[in-house]
C-alpha cells in the first residue's frame, strides 16, 4: 500500500477503550478472581458479548484514514475529547490501534509533552542526556547538539543544578530545548506550545516553523488557531473520533470555528479532569459573555464583560468562595475576585447547600486594555481547604476599538484601559 511519496499513511484506524479504564488500575486480584468465577458460571449461557462490549467500550477513534506527503506539515484540530491525543498516541506507537493499519516512513519523533522523563534530582546537563535518549536521540547526536540545546534553553549558569531547583519557566525552556533539537523525519507534536509565557511560546513557534521548513513531515495538534495556520498548509478536523474534514488550514480553521465545534469562550470540565480532592465541589463550566450575553472569546473593551462559573456542590460547603484570577497572556496578574467579596453576599452565603450554582461577575465597560487575557478559577474555603483550582481555565482577547485614546493608533502599555475623568482648565491667557 505504501507509496514512497508519503511519509504517513493510515487506513481505518480505530481505538477502543474500556469505559472506566482509569478505575481499572485499582483492580485487585480479588476482582479478577470474582470475574473469572462469574465467567465460568456464564459458560452455559448464550454469548452476549457483542451487545455488552458496545456498552462497556467507547471508540476514541473510528475509521480514521489520511495520508501525509513527505515534508508536509499537517495540523489536527478538534475540541477536547475529539480524539486528537489518541490519534497522536497511536501514531507515535505509545498505544496500538484496535483496528486499521498504518505506515510511517522514517524515524518518528513524538512530543506528546515536553520534559518526558525529566528527573527532579538530576542536573540540567544530566536531564538533557536522559531526556534526549528517551526521545530517541543517540548519545553522539546529543553531544553534537549539546551546546545548541543549552544556548536555546538560556539556563547555562544552572546547567549543573538539579532541575528541582529550577523555576517552572526554566524547566520548560530546558525541556523544550531538548525536544526542539530532536531531528526526526516525522515529528508528531501535541499541544506543547500551550505552556510557558508569551515570549517562550513565540520562540517555540519560531523553532517549530524552522522544523517545518526543513522538509520534515510534521503532525501538529494545537488549540492555537493562528499557530495552526502559520505552521501548516493543511489540517484535518476531528470530532468524536472521526475525521470531519481535510482542507487547507485556513479553511479548516474556519470550518472548525463556525461549525460550533469549538465553543471558544467556554470551557467544560470532563470527569477525568477533576481531581478527586475537589469533592464535593465539581466545576461544570466557565463562560465568557459579551454584552449581548453570547458566549465569545473576543470581547470589546468598551463593553461590559460577564464571566460565568457553573458548578455543582455534591454536599454542603461552609465558607466557600468561588472566583477567578485574571492574568495577561504573559502571566502578569491583573486582579483577583471572588463571588463572596461583596459584603452582602458574604453574609448571605456563609454556607451553600448541595446543588448546582452559577456565579456571575460583570467586569464593567472600559476596564481592560487590548490584548489576550487568561482566567484561572479557584474554589476554596479561606484557610481551610482549596477545593479546585485551574490556572488556565479560559483565555480571551479584548479589542480596544472605540476605547479612550484609540484616536491615536499607538499601542498603550498596561493591562487596563480605564475611561478616566480628565478636565482641562484654562488658567489664563498666557
Amino acid at each position: 500500500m505504501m507509496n514512497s511519496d508519503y511519509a504517513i499513511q493510515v487506513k481505518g484506524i480505530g481505538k477502543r477503550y474500556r469505559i472506566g479504564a482509569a478505575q481499572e488500575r485499582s483492580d485487585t486480584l480479588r476482582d479478577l478472581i470474582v470475574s473469572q468465577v462469574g465467567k465460568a458460571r456464564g459458560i452455559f449461557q448464550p454469548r452476549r458479548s457483542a451487545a455488552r462490549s458496545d456498552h462497556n467500550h467507547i471508540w476514541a477513534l473510528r475509521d480514521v484514514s489520511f495520508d501525509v506527503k513527505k515534508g508536509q506539515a499537517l495540523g489536527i484540530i478538534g475540541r477536547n475529547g475529539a480524539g486528537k491525543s489518541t490519534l497522536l498516541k497511536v501514531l507515535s506507537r505509545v498505544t496500538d490501534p484496535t483496528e486499521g493499519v498504518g505506515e510511517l516512513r522514517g524515524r518518528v519523533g513524538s512530543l506528546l509533552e515536553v520534559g518526558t522523563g525529566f528527573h527532579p534530582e538530576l542536573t540540567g546537563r544530566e536531564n538533557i542526556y536522559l531526556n534526549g535518549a528517551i526521545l530517541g536521540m543517540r548519545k553522539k547526536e546529543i553531544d553534537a547538539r549539546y551546546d545548541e540545546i543549552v544556548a536555546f534553553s538560556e539556563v547555562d549558569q544552572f546547567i549543573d543544578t538539579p532541575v528541582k531547583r529550577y523555576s517552572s519557566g526554566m524547566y520548560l525552556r530546558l525541556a523544550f530545548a531538548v525536544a526542539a533539537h530532536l531531528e526526526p523525519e516525522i515529528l508528531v507534536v501535541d499541544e506543547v506550545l500551550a505552556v510557558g509565557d508569551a515570549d517562550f511560546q513565540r520562540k517555540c513557534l519560531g523553532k517549530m516553523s524552522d522544523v517545518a521548513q526543513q522538509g520534515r513531515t510534521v503532525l501538529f495538534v494545537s488549540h492555537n488557531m493562528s499557530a495552526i495556520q502559520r505552521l501548516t498548509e493543511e489540517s484535518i478536523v476531528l470530532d468524536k473520533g472521526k475525521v470531519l474534514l481535510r482542507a487547507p488550514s485556513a479553511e479548516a480553521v474556519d470550518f472548525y470555528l463556525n461549525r460550533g465545534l469549538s465553543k471558544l469562550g467556554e470551557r467544560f470540565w470532563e470527569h477525568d479532569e477533576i481531581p478527586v480532592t475537589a469533592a464535593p465541589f465539581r466545576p461544570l463550566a466557565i463562560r465568557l459573555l459579551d454584552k449581548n450575553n453570547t458566549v465569545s472569546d473576543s470581547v470589546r473593551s468598551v463593553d461590559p464583560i460577564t464571566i460565568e462559573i457553573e458548578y455543582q456542590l455534591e454536599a454542603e460547603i461552609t465558607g466557600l468562595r468561588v472566583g477567578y484570577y485574571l492574568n495577561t497572556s504573559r502571566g502578569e496578574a491583573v486582579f483577583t475576585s471572588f463571588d463572596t467579596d461583596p459584603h452582602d453576599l458574604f453574609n448571605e452565603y456563609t454556607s451553600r447547600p448541595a446543588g448546582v450554582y452559577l456565579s456571575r461577575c460583570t467586569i464593567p465597560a472600559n476596564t481592560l486594555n487590548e490584548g489576550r487575557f487568561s482566567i484561572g478559577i479557584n474554589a476554596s474555603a479561606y484557610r481551610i481547604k482549596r477545593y479546585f483550582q485551574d490556572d488556565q481555565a479560559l483565555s480571551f482577547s479584548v479589542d480596544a476599538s472605540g476605547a479612550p485614546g484609540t484616536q491615536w493608533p499607538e499601542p498603550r502599555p498596561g493591562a487596563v484601559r480605564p475611561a478616566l475623568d480628565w478636565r482641562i482648565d484654562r488658567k489664563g491667557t498666557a
Partner: protein
Amino acid sequence: MATVDSQTANQTVVLKPAKGWLGVDLKELWYYRELVYFLTWRDIKVRYKQAALGIAWVILQPLITALVSTFVFSRGLKIDSGSLPYPLFVLSAYLPWHLFANSLTKSSSSLVGNANLITKVYFPRIIIPLASVLSSLLDFFISLVILLIAMVIYKAPITLTALWIIPFSVLAMIIALAVGLWFSALNVQYRDVQQILPFISQIWLYITPVLYPINIGNNPIFKAIYNLNPMVGVVQGFRWALFGGTQPDATIWISGAAILLLFISGIYFFRRMEKTFADVV
C-alpha cells in the same frame, strides 16, 4: 542538517492492531541500547543522590547483614557452616542473593514507576525492567570488593575457579529478570503485586541456602524438588566457585530448566501485556 543514520532513514513503522504472542525484537532492542544505559545510569544516580550517607549504604548493607547474621545464626543458633568461617559463608551467598532480590524488587515496580514514560514515548517496554535489573550491579560490585577483603582477612585463597562467579551472577540476574517480567506486567493491572512481593522475597530467602547450609540428605527426589528453586543452584555455585567444596552436580540442570521456563514465559507474558500498558497504567 539531518544527521540520521542511514540505517534508520529508511525505517518503516507499521501500525496495526496487536494480536497474539510476540517474541522480542532483538534488533530493535540493540537499536535502543543507549536508552538501556541511560535508564540504568539514572536509576543508580537517583537512588543515592538524596540519601544522606549516599553510596556508603552500599558498603554498610552487606557488612551489617554479615554481622547480624553471624551473631544470630552462628553464635546464637549455632549453625554449623563447616570449615568455612560463618561471615564468609554468609557473605558469599548474600552477594548473589542480594543481587537477585534487589533486581527483583526494582524490576517488579519498574513499569508502574515509569508510567509517565510509558504513556508518552514509544520504546521497547522490556527496557524498563531490564535497566532496573542492571542498576543493581553497582551494589553487587561494591559488595564483591567487601567479600574479597573479607577473604583476605580470613586468609581464604583466591583461585581461578572464582571466575565462575561471573556466570552465576548473570544467572541470578536472569532469574530476577524472568520473575520481574511477570511481576512488573502483573503490577500494571494489579497493584496487589507490590504488597505480595516482600513476602515472596522473604519466603524465597528461607528456601534458599543463604543463611544456613543445605542438609537435605541424598534422597534424589527431595533434591530435585529443592533444586526447582533456581536460586539454590546459583547460591551453591557461587560458594563453590569461591571456596570449593561440593561441585554443582547434575541437579543444577533442574535449576537451569526452571530458569529457562520462567524466562521464556516471562518474556511472552510481558510482550502480551505490553500492548495495554499505556492504556491501563
